[in-house]
Every structure is written in structure tokens, then in C-alpha cells.
């Protein structure tokens, strides 16, 4: 009998073009996603006078620089942003790649667009010049982020040189409580294993709590693998995955679907497969989480208080925590629910899919935003779906802003920003210093918790807010 293999090993082996004696491996890339920030990769390709080897496998959608208050490129006021979006269209045309421009009705954040159009599928390798590419692993793919030189390399060769990462399994068993989402799961994991806990690893998330998540929740978990230092995150495909993929624009149809499905069912890790590193997290114990510092590992349940760095035994962590608190303007011992927010952002490739908006709307319904709140759907498709369900109305009735899809305040490159000293509750993935604007203070939360902070004006335990409503 063949030795038991992890899903990661199966995915890796299926994409090996050649392996050198030193272990360096040339991997084939099945799908390459690009966005408006991939321009440096295109420039490199042009400088080298090369072509895109497989335009049919290359897909682009503008997201980072796209202002969320316009519907077309022509309306963009800022010359630089407009030029960047025009450049992407021009590059797409020149190299013949798929392009979902603002007039396509399909544009949005690359990591939202890929799965919803069926570009992302189980069993594939996928790269994108963006660190949150691990998102796509939620479908049972090997997906990872790359830099601009690597983007140019994939354009020209459809391959990448890689050293095989180690395999890690994070098992979350149990039943998630009311008001606890995929975001709380991944924040709890990072809080436990640290921001470097998965460095050098491809991470498989397993266990009953993970299997119980819908596809949106799974994507949220895989999305933030990079925040634990992981190269890639993945979840074994199952009926939830197959139902999600079936019928999507670029997904296989008819006989090809049947063949694909038969293959996808062989992907999950074999019983007894060995992982280099294992971690377990108790799913029953996870509460809604809020970050308090400038690394995603600085996280506590909303019921707790800002920790005291003096209690941290690891001197490196202690020092970093002190710096974090200073930047965040917080005192040890402050209950998280006493912290007032200035702005709320519901969006990003972590939490801007339809399920995220549904849960946020449930909390917002019949309440009033106490602070400026931006709701930015992840794609045009999500936006249409939400509008068909009347979610946009729920948000605007609550005094929140309903915007056009893009990265928006996740990275603040499109003009949606925090002012110096302003504090946000944000459903994005990074609370780094200045991430949402110079001097901005970011607290990461799930979509229900973001809506709860918006209608309360401070962090609030969404479970209390929604008591009796479920």
C-alpha cells in the first residue's frame, strides 16, 4: 500500500515539473490571479521583452487602487489611481489575459472574484502577487502569495521555483458558539500559535469546527494564514465545497465536472498521514475576538481586558507588546468593551462575502450607527446579491455607507483612510502600524462584532446585543 499522504503532499506532487537534487522544485501554476498592484510584475515582463505564456490561465481584477465611490474608471478623480486602473486594462489587452474591469459586472477583490467565478477550484495550484492568496486554499487548492519578480516569472513561464514547505495541521474540534465566526476562529488560532507560528509551513485546517463552517467562513480562516506566518492554508474539499463550485462560470461542466469531482474526492489527507507540526484549538471555547495591538497575535476575547505586558514571560513579546500599547494609546487593564471607536470598516478579502454581509446586516437591522461606518462588498457579484436581499437598505437605514467593491480601508490605498489617532473596528486582516492610514489604530474583528461596535460606538459583545434574537 502506498504510504499515507497529506492533502498538501498530494497537491504538491501533482504540480512538480521537475525537482533538482537540492530539493528545489519547479512547480506548475494552474491559475494566476492579478490585480492593479501587479503592475510591477507587468513592467518587469515588458522590460525583459517577454510574453505571458498562458494568458488563458491568467485573470485580472482591479481592487487595491479602486476608489469605492465611483462606478467607472472615467469617474476616478485622482489621476494616479485612474492611470493605474487604465494601465491594468492596457496590460490585459496587450497580453490577452482575462480582465474583469469596472464595466464587466464581475470586478472586485481578486480573492473574492477567484472563488465566486469558479477560477479557484479544488486540486489546483494558484498564485497571486498578494499575500492573502492563501484564501483560495479554502476550496482545497494549494494557493500562495508571491512578490513582483515571481509574478513576472509566472507570467513568462507559468511555473515557479519553490522549496517544499513543511506540513502543519491545526485541528479545531467542537461546536462554535452563537455569534462566533470564522474570523474569531482564525484570530484565536493566531493568538495561540503566534504571528510566526506557521512560518515555513503549509497549513491544513481540520476538525469538526472547521468542517462546520460554510465556504465564506473557511475562506476567512485560510485568508489569515499569512498572519500566522504560513505559506499556504487549506481545507479538505467536501460536499460544502463541491456545492459551492458547481455551476460557477469557469468551473468544469458535464463530463468534465464528473471527472473533476472524482479526482477532488481523493484529495483529503489520508488517515494516518504525518504532519511536521500539529496544533489543536478548542472550538467550544472560542469567543468573539478583538485585537488590541499592532500584530494579529495581540488578541483577546471581547469579554477580557487589554493585557498587561508585565505578565508576558517572553521578553521579545513583552517589548513588542509595550510598543503596541503605546502606539494604540491603550492602558493595560482597560475592558475591551470600554474602548470607543471612531470608524468602522466592514469589507476586505477576509470578510466581504455575502455571508459576512448577511451577519453584519442582522446586527445592524433596526439599529443606528454611532460612528462613520463603511460597508464595502468584496465584488460586484456580492454587491448585487446583497442588494437583491435588501441588505444595502438595512445598512443605509442604519446610517452606514454602502460602497462599490474594492480593498478600500483594508490598506488605505484608494483614499479610504483613518486619520492620525483615529481608532477603527475593522473586519480586515492587518492591524499593523499605519496600515489603515498614518497614525491610525486598527482593531480586527469579525463582521458581526464590527456591526456591534458601529451601533454601540465602542466594542460590544455581539452575543449580548443579539440576545433573544436567535
Amino acid at each position, binding site marked *: 500500500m502506498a504510504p499515507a499522504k497529506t492533502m498538501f503532499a498530494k497537491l504538491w506532487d501533482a504540480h512538480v*515539473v521537475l525537482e533538482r537534487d537540492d530539493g528545489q522544485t519547479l512547480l506548475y501554476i494552474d491559475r494566476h490571479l492579478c490585480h492593479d498592484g501587479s503592475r510591477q510584475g507587468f513592467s518587469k515582463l515588458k522590460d525583459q521583452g517577454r510574453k505571458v505564456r498562458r494568458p488563458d490561465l491568467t485573470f485580472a481584477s482591479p481592487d487595491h487602487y479602486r476608489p469605492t465611490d465611483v462606478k467607472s474608471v472615467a469617474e476616478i478623480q485622482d489621476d494616479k489611481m485612474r492611470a493605474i486602473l487604465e494601465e491594468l486594462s492596457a496590460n490585459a489587452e496587450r497580453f490577452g489575459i482575462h480582465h474583469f474591469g469596472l464595466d464587466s459586472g464581475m470586478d472586485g477583490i481578486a480573492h473574492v472574484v477567484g472563488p465566486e467565478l469558479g477560477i479557484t477550484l479544488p486540486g489546483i495550484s494558484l498564485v497571486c502577487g498578494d499575500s492573502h492568496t492563501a484564501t483560495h486554499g479554502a476550496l482545497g487548492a494549494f494557493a500562495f502569495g508571491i*512578490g513582483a*519578480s515571481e509574478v513576472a516569472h509566472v507570467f513568462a513561464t507559468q511555473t515557479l521555483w519553490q522549496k517544499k514547505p513543511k506540513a502543519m495541521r491545526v485541528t479545531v474540534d467542537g461546536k462554535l458558539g452563537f455569534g462566533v465566526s470564522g474570523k474569531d476562529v482564525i484570530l484565536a488560532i493566531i493568538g495561540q500559535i503566534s*504571528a510566526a507560528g506557521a*512560518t515555513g509551513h503549509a497549513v491544513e485546517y481540520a476538525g469538526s469546527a472547521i468542517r462546520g463552517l460554510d465556504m465564506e467562513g473557511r475562506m476567512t480562516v485560510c485568508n489569515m494564514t499569512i498572519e500566522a506566518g504560513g505559506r499556504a492554508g487549506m481545507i479538505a474539499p467536501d460536499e460544502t465545497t463541491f456545492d459551492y463550485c458547481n455551476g460557477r462560470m469557469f468551473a468544469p461542466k458535464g463530463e468534465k465536472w464528473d*471527472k473533476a469531482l472524482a479526482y477532488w474526492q481523493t484529495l483529503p489527507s489520508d488517515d494516518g498521514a504525518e504532519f511536521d507540526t500539529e496544533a489543536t484549538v478548542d472550538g467550544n471555547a472560542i469567543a468573539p475576538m478583538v485585537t488590541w495591538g499592532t*500584530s494579529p497575535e495581540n488578541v483577546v476575547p471581547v469579554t477580557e481586558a487589554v493585557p498587561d505586558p508585565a505578565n508576558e514571560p517572553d521578553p521579545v513579546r513583552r517589548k513588542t507588546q509595550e510598543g503596541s500599547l503605546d502606539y494604540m494609546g491603550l492602558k493595560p487593564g482597560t475592558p475591551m468593551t470600554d474602548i470607543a471607536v471612531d470608524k468602522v470598516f466592514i469589507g476586505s478579502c477576509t470578510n466581504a462575502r455575502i455571508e459576512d454581509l448577511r451577519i453584519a446586516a442582522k446586527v445592524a437591522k433596526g439599529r443606528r450607527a454611532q460612528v462613520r461606518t463603511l460597508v464595502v462588498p468584496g465584488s460586484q457579484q456580492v454587491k448585487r446579491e446583497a442588494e437583491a436581499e435588501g441588505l444595502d437598505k438595512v445598512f443605509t437605514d442604519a446610517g452606514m455607507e454602502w460602497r462599490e467593491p474594492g480593498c478600500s480601508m483594508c490598506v488605505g490605498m484608494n483614499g479610504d483612510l483613518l486619520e492620525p489617532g483615529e481608532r477603527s473596528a475593522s473586519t480586515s486582516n*492587518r492591524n499593523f*502600524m499605519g496600515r489603515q492610514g498614518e497614525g491610525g489604530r486598527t482593531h480586527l474583528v469579525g463582521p458581526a462584532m464590527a456591526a456591534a461596535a458601529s451601533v454601540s460606538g465602542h466594542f460590544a459583545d455581539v452575543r449580548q446585543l443579539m440576545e433573544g434574537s436567535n
Partner: protein
Amino acid sequence: MDAFTKWTAKAAPIDAANVDTDQIIPAPFLSRIRTEGYEGLLFYRVRRKADGEMDPDFILNRDDFKDAGILVADRNFGCGSSRENAAWTLVDNGIRSVIAPSFGDIHYNNEMNNGMVPVMLDAGICADLRRQLHANPGAEITVDLERNVVVAPDGKEHAFTIPAFNRERLLKGLDDVSFTLEQESDIAAYEAKRRDEADWLFE
């Protein structure tokens, strides 16, 4: 890409863990094209105070360290965003090597793709190197890629490893793409096999 054989330079200690690429180069500069250069932008915000003035306490603002060519950092250096601009910013400001217990995976590759040598050494050794640099501001470190050793200010040598594939390319200053294109027959064979066995992947 410039070849890297041996690099001797003043080194600066960066004491914080999890130095992310947003700190190395903040988002507003990412739209700059490569040829514009990134000089003067390294740690743009971190090295300034809230009022925009340079923070005299930030290590790279101090006279002894401002022309450092090597950084000795703590764990998880370059975590976060995939922005290759972070590696460009380091190189354009004279940093050809970063020594740390661990790196963000994407940034690690980005450094090597820009003629830099990221050196992984034990956390204890890194802490000791930082101590030496604090005690002797302006002290030099050598990163010798031919011998795979770091020579510390106290003269001690510390061996390190770097993937052989990247080491070869760094020593010669070669770009991967031309090398990969020489493997064309393997790539074409793989593509043919893929089309055959996994036709569901294609329209």
C-alpha cells in the same frame, strides 16, 4: 541583479519582533515604479515622530548606524504584505543583508530575488549580535556567501544555510527566468500531461 559574494558593512540592531513590510515601506509609496528608486524611504513612518520630524532615537537615525549595510533583526522579519517594494527599499538604502531568527516567507524570497542575502541564525545568536552592536556602535559584520558564514564584530564565525538554488543565482547575479526557460521541454511535457489527465482544468 548584482552578484553577491561577500559583504562587509556596518550593522544596525533592530530589536522588535514581527517587523512587517508595511513598516519597511508604507502603502502610499507602493505606486512608485522601480526605476524611480526608493532612497530615503526606508522605515519612512517608524523613523519619524507623530509631528513628522525625524525621531532621533530611532536606530537608523543615529550617526553610528545611519549608513548601515546590514540589519540584525528579531523573529519574523518582513512578515505581512507580499510587496517586493520592501526589498527594493532595503537595497536602495544600502542594506544587502538582513540577519534574523526567521523571516516572512514571501519577503525572504523577495530579498533573494533582489540580490540580497537573508541570513537565518538562532534567536540566541541574533540577540548576541544585537548586543554587540549596541555595545560597539558602528561595528561591522561580514556576510560571506562563498563560505556560508557570518563574521560577527567579536570575530566569531556563525555558519548559515540558504537554499543551494538561490545561492548559485546570487553568487552569479543571475535572473531565474532565463534559467527556467531552458527547462522548456520539461514544462511543455508537463503541460501536455496535464491537459490529458486533468482536462477539467481547461475550457
